[in-house]
């Protein structure tokens, strides 16, 4: 088994995920969607890395690859120094106790035919932890911890509101005391007043259990609030990564700047400037050479569409992939 010396909790190295696009006669592979294209980052124990980007930027694919719900095309993932991608069968299943995921859609991610108690107990059953009575006690404690009354155990998901369902999903994710949790847009489908409750809950749990989070979101303010460091993705690549405060107060990459400018502020006097970016996100099917943002970039120069920028060290743990940042 491959393993490396690392202090990080989880580390992705040169992660790539292509999806084949099949077309025409014989269902031939006509092209590849470059969902994630050479992405590397690491997350420490108890740290939250925020991952932001627009639709199609590949942020959800990164999250799913990290917990091996999807097999990356190439690259490696080290969990506490151990290469996850070489694990198989029973070894992998055992390892899965350490990393869990909370999904975006609180309606689609809970089995409607299972009671809330059975949903939260399922990870314990799969990993053969405790007997029936112990599991019931543990489920009651978990539900209480996420702010639900233990008496809801015998009820079904449809009886709950979106925020309550997300609490059930969180209880299930922490049932095995994981060390790393991918939070894939956990609050995007929730109303703001409920969103704040769930964000607070996730932060409290992190403090208690010392979990590392990959927090995926398109809502910039939530990421600004919860994460220690932030990575910004555009069309399958990380264009900027660094400490959250620095990114939100002085972004380096022109895409990050535009994203921050486009986000509506809670201040009516903020003014109504012209939209920071023209045009749409291009397709990430077989992308052209050079910088993928070049076509929409306000500071692009001719050579931007020729050579692809790599993440450059700007000091202070800040990196940006731009020739002219």
């Amino acid at each position, binding site marked *: 088994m491959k393993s490396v010396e690392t202090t990080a909790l989880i580390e992705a190295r040169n992660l790539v995920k292509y999806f084949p696009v099949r077309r025409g006669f014989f269902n031939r592979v006509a092209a590849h969607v470059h969902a994630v294209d050479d992405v590397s980052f690491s997350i420490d124990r108890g740290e939250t890395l925020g991952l932001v980007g*627009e639709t199609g930027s590949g942020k959800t694919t990164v999250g799913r690859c990290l917990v091996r719900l999807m097999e990356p095309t190439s690259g490696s993932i080290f969990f506490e120094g151990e290469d996850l991608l070489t694990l198989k069968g029973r070894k992998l299943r055992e390892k899965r106790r350490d990393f869990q995921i909370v999904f975006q859609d609180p309606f689609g991610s809970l089995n409607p035919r299972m009671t809330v108690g059975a949903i939260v107990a399922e990870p314990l059953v799969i990993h053969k932890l405790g007997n029936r009575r112990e599991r019931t006690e543990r489920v009651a404690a978990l539900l209480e911890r996420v702010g639900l009354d233990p008496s809801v155990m015998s009820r079904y998901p449809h009886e709950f509101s979106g925020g309550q369902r997300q609490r059930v999903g969180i209880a299930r994710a922490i049932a095995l005391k994981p060390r790393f949790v991918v939070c894939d847009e956990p609050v995007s489908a929730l109303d703001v*007043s409920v969103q*704040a409750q769930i964000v607070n809950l996730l932060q409290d749990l992190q403090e208690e259990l010392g979990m590392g989070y990959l927090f995926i979101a398109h809502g910039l303010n939530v990421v600004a*609030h919860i994460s220690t460091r932030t990575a910004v993705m555009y069309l399958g690549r990380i264009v900027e990564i660094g400490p959250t405060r620095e990114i939100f107060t002085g972004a380096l990459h022109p895409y990050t700047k535009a994203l921050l400018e486009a986000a509506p*502020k809670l201040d009516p006097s903020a003014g109504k400037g012209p939209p920071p970016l023209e045009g749409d996100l291009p397709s990430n099917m077989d992308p052209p050479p050079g910088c993928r943002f070049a076509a929409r970039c306000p500071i692009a120069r001719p050579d931007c569409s020729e050579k692809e920028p790599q993440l450059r060290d700007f000091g202070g743990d800040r990196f940006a992939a731009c020739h002219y940042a």
Partner: protein
Amino acid sequence: MLPSLLSGGAESVIISAMEELLKVEDLVVSFPSEKGEVRVVDGVSLEVGKGEAAAVVGESGCGKSMTALSLFRLVPYPGRIVGGRILLKGRDLMQLGEKEICATRGRDLTMVFQDPLSALNPVMTIGAQITEAVHAHEKVSKAEATDRAVEALELVGLPSAKERLKAYPHQFSGGMRQRVLIAMALVCGPSLLVADEPTTAIDVTIQAQILDLLDRLREEKGLAILLITHDLGVVARFAERVYVMYCGRVVEEAPVKDIFQNPAHPYTEGLLASVPGMTGGATRLKAIPGTVPSPDALPPGCSFAPRCPLQDSGCEVGAPPFTPVGEAHSARCFKVEASK
């Protein structure tokens, strides 16, 4: 000459902004349930002036979308409008016959929906869908309807509009589909556009483009827009006048500046405090405790009382009345101090 012209222009803008276009009075929408009639919209009154940008903001289930549908008398069965008046240019839409209301919908009063993909017919070209709207309201030739469609698509900033008439909805991106829907809503020259969460399904950089387009339509066409949204950031960016809804009632109404700088209702304050700031590093968010009550199990008196930091036993006696707290600013709360 020029400065006086300009100042005259500014004045006339103010006057025309005062001119009333839509006035809703005491609107009540109710749905039958096992526990009897449930009022999902309970006594909503609002006004939109000519060329004004108004917004109704609230969380899911607060009745904002139902209020929007009521303006078109499109409340889904078995719900119905059981009270109130809806005056568009002084004409009560509640009194119109089915034929007359059909002639108003899509012509004087139009709507843009949240999900542009399901609002467009996937098996019709966008040209056919837009000209269909023209033919529904006006006796014009095919060629003229096509010209109008191209004009509308150009107005919303769709590149090479003429060629794209033959394209189908799936060939457009989310932002472009939303532009097509807006073009369809504009093709008959409405005076009021109701936009129900028009940017919710769209990425922020595209959202900025759509909001900019709506601003431009107001300026150039004098179009009044009633925006229905849950996003306070969009409200701050776009609206002039804001109505905050909670549990079927408007709980606060004010000019946009006052809502954000000087909120009076504890629910509005709570909502604003729940939104994390963009600078990061803050401590805990001030979440509103509890959840929105179900419309068939509303608490007596003020519906917000069980979640309210200011509540006491006095809050359970009947619905709080509107208390004026400033100029054109009032809140439905027993605890706010009336101005003057």
